[in-house]
């Protein structure tokens, strides 16, 4: 049978974790598994620690608590750049519950917010203060996250796009995010991330490399579009086949990069 343990601080909650336990954030992932009788765990660990829900400036970065919900992101002026990604997650009820920390753990094809955070090169701060890149975190996905550290993008250099069959809310065929930094009028050091194109949200190095030093126009991005799915093996699922994802990815990448048809 299932046990629920509630701790006043996230540190104590983290200490209570083991492989038979799951950390409850907003509940949208864990309660789903509870409802379906997942027997891989028999303990739910949660905390009432209010610090997990804080958004605060830390130097030139923003620290976003792991328990901050999608609705809170949409309501925050400081996090306006993440509003479109937050809005891409579920309907209003889900957004009142789903947390940033939980989104990092969301199984395929979910995790749209993590895609945006990958392109922003967010840093994951664990409960005990250890910091690691989001990319590294996604590779192993364990431990309890305290917060994310995000550098605010400038101007319009951050773009996010979610492709779904149903509007205004639908599961991702794919989601894409780009951080388009420039140097002397040309793209330089850009970061591109995809969701629902691999088992976890991923950075797409082939596209990033093809965008280095080019201008942001049809001619400039041509090589990047042809490398759109290089090294990726998109999964089949009820939303779309891997084949379909591969076929349409260049189209959506172009729209993302050139800011076309921005929805």
């Amino acid at each position, binding site marked *: *049978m*299932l046990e629920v343990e509630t701790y006043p601080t996230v540190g104590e909650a983290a200490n209570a974790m083991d492989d038979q336990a799951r950390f409850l954030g907003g509940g949208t992932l864990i309660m789903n598994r509870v*409802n*379906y*009788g997942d*027997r891989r765990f028999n303990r739910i660990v949660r905390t009432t620690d209010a610090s997990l829900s804080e958004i605060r400036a830390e130097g030139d970065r923003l620290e976003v608590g792991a328990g901050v919900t999608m609705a809170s992101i949409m309501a925050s002026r400081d996090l306006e750049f993440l509003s479109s990604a937050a809005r891409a997650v579920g309907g209003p009820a889900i957004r009142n519950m789903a947390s940033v920390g939980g989104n990092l753990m969301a199984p395929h094809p979910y995790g749209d917010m993590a895609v945006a955070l990958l392109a922003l090169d967010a840093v994951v701060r664990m409960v005990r203060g250890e910091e690691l890149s989001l990319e590294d975190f996604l590779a192993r996905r364990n431990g309890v996250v305290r917060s994310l550290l995000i550098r605010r993008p400038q101007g319009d250099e951050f773009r996010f796009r979610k492709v779904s069959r149903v509007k205004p809310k639908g599961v991702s065929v794919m989601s894409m995010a780009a951080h388009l930094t420039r140097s002397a009028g040309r793209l330089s050091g850009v970061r591109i991330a995809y969701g629902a194109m691999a088992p976890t949200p991923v950075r797409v190095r082939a596209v990033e490399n093809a965008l280095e030093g080019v201008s942001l126009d049809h001619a400039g991005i041509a090589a990047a579009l042809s490398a759109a799915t290089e090294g990726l093996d998109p999964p089949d699922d009820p939303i779309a086949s891997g084949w379909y994802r591969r076929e349409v990815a260049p189209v959506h990448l172009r729209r993302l990069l050139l800011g076309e048809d921005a929805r």
Partner: protein
Amino acid sequence: MNAEYRKDLFADERSDDFDVVGKPVLRQDIMGHVTGRSKFYDDHAFDGLLHMRCVRSPHHHARIRSVDSSAAERQDGVVRVLGGRDVPVNTNTLLSLINFGRDDEPLLATDKVSYVGQPVLAIVATSVRAAQEAVDAVNVDYEELPHVLDVEKALKPEAPIVNDEYPNNTFDYFDTYDHQKLRFGDVETAFSRADHIVGGEYQMSPIEQAPIETCGAIAAPETNDRITVHTSTQALFFSVGVTAKQLDISSARLHFIGGTVGGGFGGKVDSHHEPLAALACLATGRPVKYMWDRAEEMQVGGPRGGERWRIKDGVMRDGRIIARAFTGFFDAGAYTRLSSYAVQKSTGHLPGPYSIPNVASNVYCVFTNRTPSTAMRGFGITAADFAIERHMDKVARAVGMDPIELRILNAYRDGDMKAHRREAKNCALIESCQAVAQKTGWSLSGDAARASSKTGGGEGALGVIPATVTDDEGRIGERRRSGLAPEPFSGKGTRGLLPEGHSSNNSSAFGNAPQRKDMEAEVERLGFKGATGVPATLQEPADEATSSARPTVPRETAQTTHPAGARGGPSLPAAYTQRPASTINQPIAQPPAQASGTPAAQQPVTPPAAAETESETATTHFQRGVRRPGVSRFISGSRRR
């Protein structure tokens, strides 16, 4: 409300004193819906409610070597574990209540599983979680078998047998054929005269009804030794009958409450929850809920079956379609449920709303190792119509004709004879096409714009049942032996010819006695004193040897040819307002002599005289009640569809 209706078209058909249509009328259940007080099946509280979860097959097809539930039975909260042997009448087919088809589906699988998700055991526990945990603790030893997931692969002689009751992987029609036939006129001759032959293949995937309320039932003990069952069913009396049969108890002991359904769309007719919940209620003496979760609803809930259609048209240069042949494959999944009926429904719908004087179809109800499919909104028609209308567009391109004008040219008109031998009445396709064209700014030629459903119908050959070529291809078992091609007239079967006839009620010429058997009164049960000579007993489903002796098309009459003179005349260009059909049907030549090599046992015979008494109206009655081995002796009441 601005409902538009065409009084100019329907003046004779409809009364003009409507006082309901066009005005809002409040739904009687709306107050419950907006206050959250409508009682759906799960909106009933019971003390000590138990919950049921099923152990399900992880394989498409596997033999069950053994089932070990001992660990599950010892778990906390587990009250009862039920298997197929605990079900008094474990095997059923839904339409057995109207004597259509053989019992082929176990409520709980015992010997083998034939689709992913098929239930093997039902576990009753004090909580959903306890039941889930017990399900995980059951050990079923499966021996995987080869499986088949494609309808045409399932028709190959070497295909694995999906459903032991139907070893040909097809539902048996009239205990004679492995498919449902439609024959009207002579498509082969017409194809040879056509200017164009247009073929096409169309397919529709299975579709899940996906009601927001998942299927389920709660069965609770009531006073007076009855069981109250709250159910999501769309077919309450079906569910009562099925439950009475499978539990072998009187339906008078079953108090079924339903009707408030959280979306059904056809997916709530399958009656599997009620018997299991009621059985568990009997076994435990406590209220039991069996409710699918969303994953089960999607995986195990019977969808609209996938269909594949091939259409071949013979078309004249002017766009008239003079012949249309269909081959259809319905994917029934592993068990019959309602697919047998869907095939008949679709056959009755062919060739679509068009007057085509030569039509043939072979439609197969095929068993595959997929989730059994069932009803869904117009099933039997939807995919056939999709195929037909896509094909009409293809024909239009082939003859270089406007697709709407092609439809108007070929549309049924009042008085035309349909392929299922009924006169077309109240036709409105032409007017619908004209309205569509008008509303979309599509320009029609003068003839097409002036055409009317009320004129030109039933003229010449289009008003009569044409002389019809028949064949006996596809007798049960033949395909298993020799892998016959499935298309109409593509095999080497014996041909016959039915004479032309005007009567749409001339059904005796078509020898459908087995079908009519369903309609006969059960004499000794009802004490029916009508006509004598009504067969009083219902035969068990015939096996292959006896099936061929069942009545079928009487080909003794097949030697009649007819002069086409009455409809003769020169070949005329098509005019929309008049459709001389003279060029459509040529006299049909003498049929080929009957193949001499046909074994005598295979010879069809005429229906027994008793079934063909003069007083057909007196002898043709709905059968009341059910008398079949395996059917509860206690089912009461009549069953009508």
